[in-house]
């Protein structure tokens, strides 16, 4: 039975290829588009990933990390004074311009961290020493900055090279790995005090206070406690999810609400989805129609409806799995290139392939159901009428 169904499926190379191609295309569209969309959305909260602190304390009305209303310097002490806080450190985050030796300007994302504890320092150093950040006029740059700030390909910027941030010298003492920012500028780390020197003076300069909960307390409870005690907004930093108290979630939803990016991109994803569904459904139904007379003959010869349905289900599930697998293969190729070049954005949470698999299988089952319905309308006696 199983073999018969598969032989009927594989026997017609052209139709089989069309079926697989349709499902492959649907899978690729769904997984790739959704992952690029996720990647783009993740870029909006990359500062939160690059500054690894469990809790971010910001001004009361701040909803996302890229648009900060600065705090007063003493707010660090206020947060530190909350019992639930194990440690709290200042953080500066802002977009500044770097002037290269050649005279050209580049926009960068400048991060200022506490010099003593280096809280918020890059997690993955490629070159150089983190502690060197305490030397005068030093910065640590990310790998993107190496390509952005270099003169040309043959002269990459190295540890020891210099440039200027707002007319103040900055010496590179380290290169690290960092997640790309939404604005496209590379990340630069320096100490908090020096970040203030690099930045044109403003009334308030403290972007956020990063903190950690005391042992035995969750970040969520500590954040709630900080909010209650200080009146500042404390977010946890775990990653996008259903928790509105997570800064990642809040940031991404802010973009969804306030920019057209998610809508326009989301539309593409939905269209990809619909196109995929349509192609898959249509091809499989056409396959059933093409085989209708043979299936009818089998019905006449005494094959029960249940077994015929099972055959169709087996066929559609098989073709679904193969199309899905090949779609994943193509997506993996795309993803590999994207991850290596950090462009275009690509983040694939496990839900995407799982949902895509379910969707593809549901599409196939729908197609099979349509076929089964069509077949149930087919009287075996019709085989006798040519």
């Amino acid at each position, binding site marked *: 039975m199983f073999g018969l169904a598969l032989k009927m499926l594989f026997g017609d190379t052209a139709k089989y*290829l069309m079926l697989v191609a349709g499902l492959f295309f649907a899978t690729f569209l769904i997984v790739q588009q959704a992952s690029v969309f996720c990647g783009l959305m993740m870029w909006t909260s990359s500062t939160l990933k690059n500054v690894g602190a469990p809790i971010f304390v910001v001004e009361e009305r701040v909803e996302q990390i890229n648009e900060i209303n600065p705090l007063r310097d003493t707010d660090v*002490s*206020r947060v530190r004074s909350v*019992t639930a806080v194990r440690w709290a450190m200042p953080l500066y985050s802002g977009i500044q311009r770097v002037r290269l030796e050649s005279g050209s300007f580049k926009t960068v994302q400048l991060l200022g961290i506490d010099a003593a504890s280096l809280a918020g320092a890059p997690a993955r150093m490629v070159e150089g020493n983190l502690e060197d950040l305490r030397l005068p006029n030093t910065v640590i740059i990310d790998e993107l900055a190496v390509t952005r700030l270099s003169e040309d390909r043959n002269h990459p910027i190295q540890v020891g090279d210099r440039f200027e941030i707002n007319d103040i010298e900055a010496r590179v003492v380290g290169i690290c790995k960092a997640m790309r920012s939404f604005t496209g500028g590379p990340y630069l780390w320096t100490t908090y005090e020096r970040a203030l020197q690099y930045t044109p003076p403003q009334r308030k300069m403290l972007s956020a206070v990063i903190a950690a909960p005391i042992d035995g307390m969750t970040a969520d409870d500590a954040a709630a406690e900080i909010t209650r005690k200080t009146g500042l907004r404390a977010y946890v930093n775990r990653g996008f999810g259903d928790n509105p108290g997570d800064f990642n979630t809040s940031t991404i939803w802010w973009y969804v609400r306030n920019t057209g990016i998610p809508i326009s991109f989301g539309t593409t994803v939905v269209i990809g989805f619909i196109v995929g569904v349509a192609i898959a459904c249509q091809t499989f139904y056409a396959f059933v129609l093409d085989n209708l007379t043979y299936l009818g003959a089998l019905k006449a010869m005494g094959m029960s409806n249940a077994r015929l349905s099972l055959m169709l289900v087996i066929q559609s599930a098989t073709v679904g799995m193969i199309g899905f697998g090949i779609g994943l293969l193509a*997506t993996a190729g795309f993803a590999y290139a994207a991850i290596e070049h950090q462009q275009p954005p690509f983040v694939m949470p496990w839900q995407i392939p799982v949902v895509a698999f379910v969707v593809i299988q549901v599409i196939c089952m729908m197609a099979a159901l349509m076929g089964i319905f069509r077949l149930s309308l087919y009287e075996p006696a019709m085989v006798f009428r040519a």
Partner: protein
Amino acid sequence: MGIFSKLIRYGTIVAAPAGVVAILGIARLQAERQMPPAGDPPLPPAAKPYVQSVSATGILEALSENVSIGVPQAGLVTEVKVKVNESVKIGDVLFRLDDRDLRAQEVSAKARLEVARANIAVSEAQLGKTKSQLARLSAVSDPRAVSVEDLENRRQDVAVVTAQLDSARAGVSAVEGELKSLTLLIDRLTVRAPRDGTVIQVNIRGGEYAATAPKEPAMIIGETDRLQVRADVDEQNATRIRPGQRGRASLKGDPSVNFPLDFVRVEPYVIPKASLTGAGTERVDTRVLQVIFSLDRPENPPVYVGQQVDVFIEAPEH
């Protein structure tokens, strides 16, 4: 079934699981590339010493505050007798100002003293002379030999000369007084330590001109064996501060160095936050309550007056 069909059939069957494997590889690669989850900083900050505490930034000062040594009058510095970090006792000479004008006055006063003293001698001599004349005339008993008038004249001469002697003596006293005042004035130009302590800072060197209202004090003397911490508490946390609360401070930049604090007092006046982070761009839009703590100077590692510290004051939350 042709080669092509076989290729398609088995190719797709092989490609499908390969795709699943490849996407698992991508998931793994992605996980590797992902930033590690939020954790502790590279140098973990010191644990908070108290369960419930108010945090503040503070600065180390000498106990009883630092004494900024003033200058009695503007003038040239001739000599600085102490070096930084030298301990001084009360009354020890710190530095001297130029006193040559006073010394010149002293020289002339001394000369005048000689003159005055000479005047006394002259008066005394005259007094002797007039007294002997009077004695001679008084000794003549023959009233015809000495007239009464003559005798009276001699007596008056003695009185005059006696008065002259007194005047000369007073003249000496006057000059002597002048000399004493000059000595005091000269001494005033020698600046002495007002109390026991250690010279923390010297901002003046010999040959420099010392003004009476300088931008920075000529010298700072303080008690460095015992230090005090001036902690700035954000005004919003001010209500949690009570006299007698314990505190603990750690050096900014090295959280491993920390020491207990003894409460001294709360400054009754809330002041605008002074520039503590050292950034020139820092603005003072916050007022802070200053709390003073004292501490014994730890032996090792050395700490210095003027260093910034992170302070935790044990204070219950509301």
